[in-house]
């Protein structure tokens, strides 16, 4: 998934989880938490949705290192490209 596709997916996910956030106004190269108020539960739901939609599991230890949204988008884009195609992926543990 390239960067633009990943951004579009993020916009949809943010709209679903935190509709009050205007995604297009977020400056991707500035710290996310300085721009929007989002708590750990909503952020957790965003991470879960990213995993569902892209297949990329973002480790908690990585998440705490990402301050700007562009870092997260770049990570998901890179990791999703490295994944086998959806029909080749093993299913998650029950």
């Amino acid at each position, binding site marked *: 998934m390239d960067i633009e596709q990943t951004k579009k997916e993020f916009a949809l996910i943010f709209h679903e989880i935190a509709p009050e956030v205007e995604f297009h106004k977020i400056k991707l190269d500035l710290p996310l938490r300085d721009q929007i108020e989002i708590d*750990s539960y909503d952020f957790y739901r965003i991470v879960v949705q990213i*995993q569902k939609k892209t297949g990329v599991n973002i*480790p*908690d230890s990585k998440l705490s290192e990402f301050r700007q949204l562009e870092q997260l988008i770049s990570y998901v884009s890179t990791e999703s490209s490295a994944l086998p195609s959806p029909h080749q992926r093993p299913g*998650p543990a*029950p």
Partner: protein
Amino acid sequence: MKYNVPMPSLGADMDQGKLMLWKIRPGDNVIKGQSIAVVETTKSTVEIESFKNGKVLELIGGEGEEIPVGKVIALFEVEGAEPMIETKRIKITPAARRYALDHGLEIESLKGSGSEGQVELRDVEALSDRKAPKSEPPLSGVNLREAIARAMARSKKEIPHYYLKTELQLGKFMNWMDEKNKNLSPDKRLMIPAMIMRAIVLSLKKHPLMNATYVNGVCVPMEGIHPGVAISFKDGGVMVPALLDADKKNLHELNSSFQDLVVRTRKGELKNRELTEGSMTVTNLGDSGADEVLGIIFPPQVCLIGLGRIRKAPVVKEDGSIGAEFVADISLSADHRASDGMTGARFLQTIDLYLKNPQHLEESHGY
């Protein structure tokens, strides 16, 4: 036998509730634990559960009506030989009612010196050594902010807090989280706050004096572990519903119950037990960027755990080397009438031990 169903008290700061909706009708059979009505308090909309098995004879309270705590809202026919509870109507001023509730005095037992035996503020003050400050405002809170203000002011006035703080080293815990979540489906992903709560719950098993209430001069350990979770609203305010029977849940059950509690709190779909049975409180201000929280105890509880932001910081590791590591500050605010600093320090130490050895979070026993 007939049984009067009263408007329940859903917290020490509740004088009355607004009956929003009846979920039963005359003639219905009701079982204990069944949701019978929806009541709006200053804090939330709450489902009221029946405490009895029985049959609905009459609905006395009307939908939309503001009803004082203790006033009869319905009449049930119940099994057994329990006598009908006659609700005694007490004439009492709002200030006197508030003072009595704040000081644990039973309103039904009060005798008033006012007109027609009305209980006045001076009557309840005379029953207590503690006099209400003359500057205290009228106590008829109508919103969440007022309810918080009242509970916190009461806490700071009455509870001799002591505070302890330590730094949690979370390197192993974060690695454990990564490993666990790698093998779980997205819907079962573990949340960091829920897993830290797991460490606190297991530690409370070992330190029952922290899982207690202090009422009328006596510290009473609670039978179950029902930690309150401070949940903030996007438009301001905070609520502290209890994660009921947290000690009886395994790791995954606690994770899903934690999320369910957040969702229902924001939707205003809490149950009355969740508002009244909190046995201690955990507040997490890490989301807001605060590194340290020194919280105010929510009476009649006797302690509060505050968690700060998880961040990387230089630490001296167990092998003596220095390096960047995940850390978070954890604080304990505790009631010195119920415990001393040594007990509190051991409690924090046990939490720290669980998070340094997170594999034990999967067990129901441990340290």
